[in-house]
């Protein structure tokens, strides 16, 4: 999926994360802030990048501010931000394929 416009998903409350996506030209540029950076930074980064890859997002500026979210939350927020940024969130979402 191609990122068409800036979009955001999630909150800054505890156990959640805020994902902001903006159109990019130079692959995935990820900027990650986390309250559990030292313990789980790598795992969060891996989950975000895997989710983007699954959704076939090639170029995007991705800002993640994490407040200790679980992997399932991270996946859900990233998916939501991607769908919003390519104007698919307001239509029937095509569950099943790459969107789980």
């Amino acid at each position, binding site marked *: 999926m191609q990122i068409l416009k800036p979009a955001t998903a999630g909150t*800054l409350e505890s156990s959640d994360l805020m994902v902001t996506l903006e159109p990019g030209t130079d692959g995935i540029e990820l900027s990650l802030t986390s309250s559990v950076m030292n313990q789980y930074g790598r795992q969060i980064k891996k989950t975000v990048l895997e989710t983007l890859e699954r959704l076939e997002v090639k170029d995007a500026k991705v800002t993640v501010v994490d407040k200790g979210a679980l992997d399932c939350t991270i996946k859900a927020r990233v998916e939501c931000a991607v769908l919003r940024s390519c104007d698919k969130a307001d239509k029937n979402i095509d569950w099943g394929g790459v969107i789980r």
Partner: protein
Amino acid sequence: MSVSQVYTSDKRTMEKVKALLERVDITLDEHLDYTCAVFDEAGVPIATGSAFGATLRCFAVDPAHQGEGLLNEVITHLMENRMERGYFHLFVYTKPGSAKFFKDLGFSVIAEVPGLLTFLENRKNGFSGYLKKLEKKKLPGQAAAIVMNANPFTLGHRWLVELAAQENEVVHLFLLSEDAGPIPASVRHRLVREGVADLPNVVCHETEAYLISSATFPGYFLKSEEKILRTQARLDTALFVQIAAALDVTVRYVGSEPRSVVTGIYNEVLTEALPAHGIQCRVVPRRELPDGRIISASAVRQAIHDDALDSVADMLPETTLAFFRSAEAAPIIAALRTEQDVVHY
């Protein structure tokens, strides 16, 4: 608990929000376009935050409710609200002691006015990326800097640039990126570029959000109290010092300001603060015409407003004059005519 908007028309709630801010020594800004708060069971605000354009400010959490994550809720609410309005690059003003809370929320510090204010943005490499971009345009030799709005470019601006170009090997000319007023930024920039095209050692840059923008210096665009203007000018100076370091700039040229209060204060702050950072500040007197009139962009806007472009023809370089006489300028002139007040306060 949920965050809800506080309307300026709701005077009673607004007073309570003001009282909450006063408890942590903050005065509610006059220029805000959105205020929100979290309320307790009795309907008393226990956390608040406001926004104006791309900036977030006036935060307070009731000391009895600190540590409950209320600031995070307020910030989330404000960020969503700003993004709905199309502002994605956000800035925060806060007291230096509170900066750490915002760093945890993904903001990074751009500059600080010691003891008064810390300025942050929601990007990790926003300002540093801007500085890197500037460094690529660095040229060898003694370098000067000028920052101008050029609204529009006059012979006064031209004279200041010419003087700097004679006295220095390189002149870095910063043009305000903000679209404020009837003359769009693209036109202002074009007129400057055309007007200095014959000076080979002048390099033009855009200030983006980082110099005299509505984020760093809202008082430049909206009438504000002197104390607030001074703080904002000091913040702007702190940013300029970092920009100057990236380009090895050792002298800043500014035009003297007999009429505009805000530019006058800004010049004063620059003259005071820059020498401490090894940058000289040269205040160049305004240029007068033989008949004693002072060249000023405000006067030019006023003349266009009054349909008397010819009366200021001797204040403008050929390029600017030709533009305002062309058909292309018609919509801009029409917009200037409808403005109530075209003179910079």
